[in-house]
């Protein structure tokens, strides 16, 4: 299994790259030129703080599920494995991989509150938020906690009883790579913060269009690339002893998750473009970048549970629904600046819930969903899981958000916001394209292009 292990080294590296630089670029390009650096710094800062917090108590809170360590199935003891004390070196790669998930989840939130938040408040918010919202949800979903436990105390057993004979829940909740923990979690956190912090000055009146779409497109491309680590690296082995069966599972399941990830994302991009074409008459590049992310988000929980047709259906639904959802902020007047709610919350819900419909037992990690004759129960479990995650994330974010609002405060001064947060919070400006050739040739050049005589 050193091949699988090598893949995990790659996957952890890919997912770290998703936050810095990929997400930083995706968000940075969409912000205004006076706030791009701050936007990127929010990703950079989230990376630095979450990494440190994760090795100190994050891993322990999520996975130290030894005897008596688990608090009501909600989170594990932060001190059992504090500072990775007692963690085998051979497990470090898994710590690394999980760490990068916590990083990007926190960083995702920043898009909702662009251009207006004190950098110091953000840097305080992040470590507390991952502690109260991310680590518990990760424990509940992946660490054997409440949402995934197959024993009698798990959510599924509470809903549909328990197969005592085999000591297993009757219905299996599914979240392959983080629809709830990552996307619903970040999306809800974004929404709560937006409501707490308020709109940007001029929201809905001034144009606040992307200042550099090439950055956003690089970001979307690198996110897709990195997402192969995110999804495909999330394989969990049935045997887990590194024997023949594990190897066989590795060499077939990963192919499926890779393929589903790609197919759903392609479908989502097309769906978003088609919605735009029908509604506005043209498909946009921002739409294609956004469709990519919407597809990736939605297939995240589902990539092991569906076949290629299921992936196409989920991708199409996510692309179309998110394309419609991003307009809602204008209708309801909440300034989810870069559409964290519209893409991650909506996309995360689409993916998590549709598993209940199009999941199939023929996929490596799937059970039959409603449309495959699996009945309503899988759907209900998925919906219940999503709802629970939303409530938890909302409550946790509210606590941290209010705490900061009442102490440090969230917003920069109004004048500073107009002036531009890059100057004010970081003392910098992103571009100085200067009197160089940049503009010299702008007006055109004297004359024609002529072939150089060879």
């Amino acid at each position, binding site marked *: 299994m050193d091949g699988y292990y090598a893949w995990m080294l790659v996957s952890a590296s890919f997912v770290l790259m998703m936050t810095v630089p990929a997400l930083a670029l995706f968000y940075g390009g969409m912000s205004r030129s006076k706030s791009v650096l701050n936007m990127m710094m929010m990703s950079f800062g989230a990376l630095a703080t979450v990494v440190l917090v994760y090795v100190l108590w994050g891993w322990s809170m999520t996975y130290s599920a030894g005897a008596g360590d688990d608090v009501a199935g909600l989170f594990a003891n932060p001190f059992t494995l504090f500072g990775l004390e007692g963690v085998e070196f051979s497990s470090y790669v898994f710590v690394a991989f999980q760490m990068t998930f916590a990083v990007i989840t926190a960083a995702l939130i920043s898009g909702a509150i662009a251009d207006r938040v004190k950098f110091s408040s953000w840097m305080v918010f992040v470590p507390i938020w991952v502690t109260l919202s991310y680590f518990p949800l990760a424990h509940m979903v992946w660490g054997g906690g409440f949402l995934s436990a197959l024993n009698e105390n798990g959510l599924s057993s509470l809903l549909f009883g328990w197969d005592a004979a085999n000591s297993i829940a009757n219905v299996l909740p599914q979240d392959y790579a983080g629809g709830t923990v990552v996307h619903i979690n970040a999306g809800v956190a974004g929404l709560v913060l937006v409501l707490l912090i308020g709109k940007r000055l001029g929201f809905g009146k001034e144009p606040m269009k992307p200042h550099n779409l090439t950055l956003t497109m690089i970001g979307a491309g690198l996110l897709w690339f990195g997402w192969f680590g995110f999804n495909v690296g999330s394989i969990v082995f049935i045997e887990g002893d590194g024997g023949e069966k594990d190897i066989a599972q590795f060499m077939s399941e990963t192919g499926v998750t890779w393929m589903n990830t790609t197919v759903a994302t392609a479908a989502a991009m097309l769906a978003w473009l088609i919605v735009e074409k029908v509604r*506005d008459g043209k498909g946009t590049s921002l*739409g294609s970048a956004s469709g990519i992310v919407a597809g990736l988000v939605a297939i995240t929980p589902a990539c092991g549970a569906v076949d290629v047709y299921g992936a196409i259906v989920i991708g199409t639904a996510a692309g179309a629904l998110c394309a419609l959802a*991003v307009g809602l902020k204008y209708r309801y007047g909440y300034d989810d600046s870069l*559409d964290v709610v519209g893409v991650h919350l909506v996309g995360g819900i689409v993916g998590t819930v549709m598993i209940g419909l199009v999941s199939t037992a023929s996929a490596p990690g799937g059970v039959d969903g409603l449309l495959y004759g699996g009945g309503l129960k899988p759907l209900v479990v998925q919906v219940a899981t999503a709802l629970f995650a939303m409530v938890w994330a909302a409550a946790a974010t509210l606590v941290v958000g209010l705490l900061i609002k009442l102490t440090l405060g969230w917003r920069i001064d109004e004048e500073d916001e107009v002036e531009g947060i890059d100057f004010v919070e970081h003392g910098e400006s992103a571009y100085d394209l200067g009197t160089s050739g940049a503009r010299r040739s702008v*007006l055109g050049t*004297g004359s024609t292009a002529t072939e150089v005589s060879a």
Partner: protein
Amino acid sequence: MKLVTAVIKPHKWEDVREALEAFGVTGMTVSEVSGYGRQKGHTEVYRGAEYDIALVPKIRIEIVVDDADTEDIVGIITKTAHTGRIGDGKVWVSPIETVIRVRTGDKDAAAL
């Protein structure tokens, strides 16, 4: 001395420059500006929001000219920059009291 200021469509700049060169104008100062007028800009669309772009890119040319040449030069610009479609721009003439060439200190006609 007069200052001729012309605001024209960007893709006409090369033609105007050539025509002026042919007439004998040896120098001018140009800049990129945005025009607001009858010609309307575009609508851009970003994630469910429309933005009306009120402004249209234009090129502004400033030429300091001898009184005698003023009419010819205005004529050349007006003719060459003409497309007949809304947004072709304006040319205006204003008085100048003196002009100096920094390199030599030459004044007025000699400075051109």
